[in-house]
C-alpha cells in the first residue's frame, strides 16, 4: 500500500505545477486551480452567536477525506474577534489564501491555508475597506482574477442602502480601485436595457473566454442586518432590493449593459463548456431561475426560465451550484430547508427532478468537481435565520449518485459551540505538493519524498 502511494505521488508531483488554470469545484473562478479529486478539508466561515461558545466569528476546518482519521471531524477553529456578520469567503488565484469577509464590520480576514492546510492562520486583516474604497460597505464575494481579488460590496456608508460597487485588490491585500455599479445617475457608459439601473451589488462571476463579467444585486446594510421578520413587516424596507444584473467588459472593468432581473438575483453560476454561452442565477424573492445568455446577435439577454417551488410561498432560493458538465443545478431554498436538483441540459427550460429536505433551514451548497459529494450548510444571515428549535446550525455531507442524496455525516455547530455555519470552501494537500498526513502511512511517505527517513521507507517497502 505504501509503495502504491509513493508511486502515485511520484507520478503526480511533477505535474502539479503544470495543472491548467481551470476552474475550482464547479462554482468558483476559472483562474483558480481546481480540486478534481478528493478534498481533504472543508473550511467553514462561521458566524459567532451570543451565548454560544466564544461568541465570535471563526473559521472552522473539517476533515473531509474519508481515508483520513479526521474525516467528518472538526480539526481546527480560528476565532477572529467580533461578530462581523461572517458571510462569504473566496480563494486567491494561487489557492494559497482564503479571504473571508464581514458584511457588518467590513473586515476582511486573509487566511494562509497552504502552509498547513489543517490549521489555517490569519496573515492579514484588512480593516479600512470602507475608508479606502470611497464608502463601500459589506464586502461579499471574493472572486479571484489573475493576481487580483475582485470583491463585491452590498452597501455604502452614506445611507446604508443598496447603492454600491466592487473593490479590486491585489493578491497581497492592497486596494487598487473601486468600480461603481452603474446607476441612473451615472451609467458609466452602460446601456440601461430595461426599467432598472439600481446600482445594487451582490455576486460576481466571469465567462473568461467571452471577456464577460457579470454582477447581481441584493440589498443594503439596513436590510441585511435587520431582523428578517421586522423587515418583512416594513413596506418601505421591502422596496430596497435589487432588480438588476450588469454585464461588464471583464478586462476593461467597464459596465456594458444593465439587465432587468426583478426579485433579487443572488448567486451567479456560469456554464463551464466554452460553447455554452450562459450563466444562471436565482431570484430570492420571486423564486425563479433566470438565464443570462448571449443571443445569436451576440447580445447578452436575461429571461426567467423556471419557477422554484411555489413562488407565492417564497421558498427563498439562496445558494445554487452548477455541475461541472453544465447539466445540473442545485438550488437551496432557505425557508423550506430543501435542496432541489434541476436538470438544466436545456438551459432555456430547466426542470426540477429531485428534492430533499436537508434541515429546518438551509443556505449554502458546495459540491465536489465530480458532483459525487455535496455539502450543505445552514445559516443565511445572523438576523435572518430561523428562531427557536428551527434554528438548526450544521454542515452536512451527502453523496449524490445522480438520482438521490445519501447522508454521510452531520456536524451540529451549536452543539459544538461554534455558531452559524455559512460558506464552505475546499482545501487539499495536493494543491501544494503535499500528502494528507492524517492518512495512515502518509507521514512516512512524505519523509521519504523529502529525503528524511529514507532508509525506513526502503525497509518498509
Amino acid at each position, binding site marked *: 500500500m505504501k509503495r502504491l502511494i509513493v508511486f502515485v505521488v511520484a507520478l503526480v508531483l511533477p505535474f502539479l505545477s503544470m495543472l491548467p488554470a481551470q476552474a475550482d469545484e464547479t462554482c468558483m473562478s476559472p483562474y483558480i486551480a481546481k480540486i478534481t479529486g478528493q478534498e481533504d478539508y472543508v473550511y467553514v466561515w462561521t458566524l459567532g452567536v451570543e451565548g454560544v461558545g466564544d461568541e465570535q466569528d471563526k473559521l472552522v476546518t473539517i476533515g473531509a477525506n474519508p481515508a483520513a482519521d479526521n474525516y467528518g471531524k472538526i480539526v481546527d477553529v480560528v476565532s477572529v474577534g467580533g461578530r462581523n456578520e461572517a458571510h462569504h469567503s473566496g480563494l486567491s488565484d494561487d489557492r494559497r489564501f482564503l479571504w473571508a469577509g464581514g458584511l*457588518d464590520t467590513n473586515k476582511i480576514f486573509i487566511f494562509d491555508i497552504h502552509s498547513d492546510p489543517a490549521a489555517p492562520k490569519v496573515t492579514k486583516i484588512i480593516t479600512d475597506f470602507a475608508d479606502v474604497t470611497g464608502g463601500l460597505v459589506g464586502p461579499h464575494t471574493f472572486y479571484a482574477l489573475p493576481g487580483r481579488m475582485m470583491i463585491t460590496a452590498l452597501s455604502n456608508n452614506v*445611507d446604508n442602502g443598496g447603492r454600491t460597487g466592487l473593490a479590486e485588490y491585489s493578491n497581497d491585500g492592497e486596494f487598487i480601485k473601486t468600480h461603481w455599479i452603474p446607476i441612473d445617475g451615472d451609467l458609466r457608459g452602460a446601456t440601461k436595457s430595461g426599467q432598472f439601473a439600481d*446600482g445594487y451589488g451582490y455576486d460576481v462571476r466571469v465567462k473568461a473566454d467571452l471577456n464577460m463579467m457579470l454582477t447581481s444585486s441584493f440589498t443594503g446594510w439596513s436590510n441585511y442586518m435587520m431582523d428578517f*421578520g*421586522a423587515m418583512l*413587516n416594513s413596506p418601505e424596507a421591502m422596496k430596497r432590493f435589487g432588480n438588476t444584473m450588469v454585464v461588464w467588459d471583464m478586462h476593461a472593468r467597464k459596465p456594458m449593459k444593465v439587465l432587468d432581473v426583478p*426579485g433579487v438575483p443572488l448567486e451567479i453560476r456560469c456554464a463551464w463548456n466554452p460553447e455554452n454561452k450562459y450563466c444562471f442565477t436565482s431570484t430570492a424573492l420571486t423564486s425563479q431561475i433566470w438565464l443570462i445568455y448571449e443571443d445569436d446577435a451576440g447580445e447578452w439577454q436575461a429571461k426567467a426560465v423556471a419557477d422554484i417551488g411555489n413562488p407565492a410561498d417564497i421558498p427563498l432560493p439562496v445558494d445554487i451550484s452548477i455541475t461541472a458538465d453544465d447539466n445540473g443545478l442545485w438550488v437551496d431554498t432557505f425557508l423550506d430547508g430543501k435542496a432541489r436538483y434541476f436538470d438544466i441540459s436545456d438551459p432555456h427550460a430547466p426542470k426540477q427532478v429531485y428534492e430533499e429536505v436537508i434541515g429546518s433551514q438551509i443556505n449554502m451548497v458546495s459540491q465536489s468537481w465530480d458532483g459525487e459529494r455535496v455539502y450543505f450548510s445552514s445559516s443565511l444571515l445572523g*438576523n435572518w435565520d430561523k428562531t427557536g428549535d428551527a434554528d438548526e446550525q450544521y454542515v452536512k455531507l451527502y453523496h449524490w449518485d445522480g438520482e438521490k442524496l445519501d447522508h454521510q455525516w452531520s456536524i451540529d455547530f451549536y452543539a459544538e459551540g461554534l455558531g452559524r455555519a455559512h460558506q464552505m470552501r475546499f482545501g487539499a494537500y495536493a494543491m501544494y505538493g503535499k500528502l494528507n498526513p492524517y492518512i495512515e502511512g502518509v507521514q512516512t511517505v512524505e519523509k521519504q519524498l523529502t529525503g528524511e527517513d529514507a532508509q525506513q521507507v526502503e525497509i518498509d517497502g
Partner: protein
Amino acid sequence: MFKWRKSRVVKAVALATGLLTAILFGSGISAQTSGSLDAGETFDVEQAFGPGDIKDGYESADYQTQSRSLLSRRGIKQDLIQYIVKPPLGLPSVPIPEDNPVTREKIDLGRLLFFDRRLSINNTVSCANCHIPEQGFTNNEISTAVGVEGRLVIRNSPTLYNAAYLKHLFLDGREISLENQVWQPMTARNEMAAPSIGYVINKINRIGDYDGLFEAAFDGRGADIATVGFALASYQRTLLSADSPFDRWYFGKDESAVSESVKRGFAVFAGKGQCAVCHQVHHDHALFLDHKFHNTGIGYAVSTGEAMIGSNQTTRVQLAPGIFTELSNEKIKSVSRIKSFNDLGLYRITENPADRWKFRTQTLRNIALTAPYMHNGQLATLRDVIDFYDQGGISNELLSPFIRPLGLTDQDKDDLEALLIALTGTNVPQLVADAFAAQIGELSIDDPNWAHENTLGY
C-alpha cells in the same frame, strides 16, 4: 388611496416657495435645480428632499429606477451658526444653555462626531446611520431603526430638525437636554453599543482626526463627558428649519406664499381637525408642539398584538415592482427575533399606569420629509396619518381625550395634506448640503483597532 410621493412633495414645496428660481442668500447654493456652488460645483437641491435611491412608484409594475449616483453627491459647508443668531421665520429664539454657548468650533467638532462611525463598538454606526440628512434627518427607508449588529430598535428614528426646542428628549421624554441625550445612543446596546463613556472618550483621544479640536473649542479642555455632549449638542442645535411657505404666509403675511388649499387646510387644522391642540401655533412662532405626551392608541394596539404583525393570518409583502404575495404570519414569526414590539412609552419612565402608551408630540415642521410616521413608523404616508386621526385613533381606556372621530371630508384631507407639505423649510438644501460636505469617520489603518495592535487600546 392617494400615495404621497417625495417628488410630489419637492415639486409642491418648490412651487409654493419659488424655490426653483430664488437665490438663497449667503449659502453658496443656488436654489435652482442644479445651481452653482462657490467652488464651481453644482448642488442638485432635489437631493435634499429624500433618499437618493428613489423608490417612488415601486408598487407598480411600471416602476422605473431614477436613482442618484453616490459619486455625484456633492456638499458645501455652511455657516450654520447663522440659524442660531437669527432663526428662520416662524421659529422663536433658540434656548442655549448657559454653560454651552454655541461657537463655530463646537459646531464643526459636533459635526465631525455626528458622522463618525468609529464611535460605536465595532466602528459601523454613527448618529447619521439613523438620522440621514437627505431623509429629513431620520430614516425614510425603514420603519424602525437598526443598531449595531442589526439589533432592533423598536421606535422610528425621530427627526433632528428643530430638536433645539425640545424640552423632553426621546419619544418617552427620558432626557432633558441635548447635551445629556447624546450619550444614550452611543452607549445603548441596541444602537451604537459603546461599552462605556470612558471607552468613547479614549477612542476619540486616539483618533488623529480629533487632534487639538476639543482643546481649540473648549479653551484647552480635552474630550470628556461634558465636552463631547457640548459639541454634539451644538451641531444638532443648528439644525433649525422653517421659513416655509406656511411661515411666509402666516407670519410673513405674504398671501401668495401658499395656495388656497393650504389656507383651507390651516382652517381645518386649527378648527375641525383639532390638530392645533397638540401641534400648537402661536402668534409669532410655531413649533407645532405642546411638549406633552399623548396616547393615540398605536402603542396600545401594538401591545395587544394587533399592529405590527396584524390580526390576519397573512401579511402582504412586496417582492418586486408590481409583485406582491400574502405571506403567512407564522412564516414571518419563524424568522423574527423580536416577538413583541410592546412599547409603553412614557410609562417606562414614570411607571405611572396612567402614562401607558403615551408618546411625545412630534413637530410637524418638515413632516413631508420624515416618513414613515408615528412612534414606530407604522404609517407610511401623510394621508395615512390624516386618516388615522380622522377615524379617532385606536380606542383604548387611556386614549387621549383630544383624539376622537373628526368627520373630515376628502377635501378637508386634501387641504390638510397641502398644509403639511407647506411646512417644509426653505433652508433644507443648505442643511443637507452642509451635511453632505461632512467627513464620514471610517476606520482607517491608523486608528485604534485590535487588528493592528496587541494592546487593549482602552
